């Protein structure tokens, strides 16, 4: 667990070189990334450092969108067909608790955007490599 904590802190440090992150956002980002990283346990996903940085950028933008109530455009019809139910469920699990804390509704587009990161991590994992 300490190793995970160390990696995630390094990921956030990397992101903070380019993005302004408040202390509160840093804590929230850590928690969300931890939930993502937990999914490595069953061996179906592999999140390289670079992939975690990308997911971190995404989650930070998600946190900021929630703060500002920014709405995203809807997902093009048909794209959901390329997202497996398992990955969709994981994406909801990671985002739902966070959104509920702010008494807001989880946008379907947000579920999709994170699900794509999971899907890519899963696909790369099949070949034994995850090069982000």
């Amino acid at each position: 667990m300490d190793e995970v904590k160390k990696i995630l802190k390094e990921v956030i440090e990397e992101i903070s070189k380019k993005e302004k992150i408040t202390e509160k956002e840093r804590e929230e980002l850590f928690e969300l990334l931890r939930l993502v990283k937990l999914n490595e346990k069953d061996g179906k996903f592999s999140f390289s450092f670079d992939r975690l940085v990308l997911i971190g950028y995404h989650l930070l933008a998600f946190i900021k969108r929630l703060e500002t109530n920014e709405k995203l455009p809807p997902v093009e019809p048909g794209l959901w067909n390329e997202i497996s139910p398992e990955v969709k469920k994981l994406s909801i699990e990671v985002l739902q608790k966070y959104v509920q804390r702010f008494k807001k509704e989880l946008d379907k587009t947000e579920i999709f955007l994170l699900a794509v990161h999971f899907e890519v991590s899963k696909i790369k994992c099949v070949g034994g490599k995850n090069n982000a």
Partner: protein
Amino acid sequence: MHDKVRVVIGDRLGKGQKVAKGVEEAGGIAIVIPGVGADMKVGDVMNKENADFGIAFCGSGGAGALTAQTKYGYPAEYGLRSIDAGITALREGKRVLGFGFMDIEELGRRLTEEYIKLIKRENKDV
């Protein structure tokens, strides 16, 4: 070698058609990547198609541009939120531009026009 400016477009939400229209209005060739995770494939397709520059759209405006930079070394700018910011990035030599979602013709048109201007200026200087 190719005569026309080739622009690769990848949008996480499967859009990009309007940007592509703008690219073509400006005289470029637009290559829109279909399917899931299209933004993250921008570097791959740029490399394959020997494209001049790429535009990636996602929630943070980062994933596609950063992936292309990490994997192929393309100079990238990300988190862009306006057309002018994209033009500035092109002038600074960036070749993969990561935007938040903004599938509009004007973006494709103005970026392509700017790139053509930059190339002409470079050719004149040589």
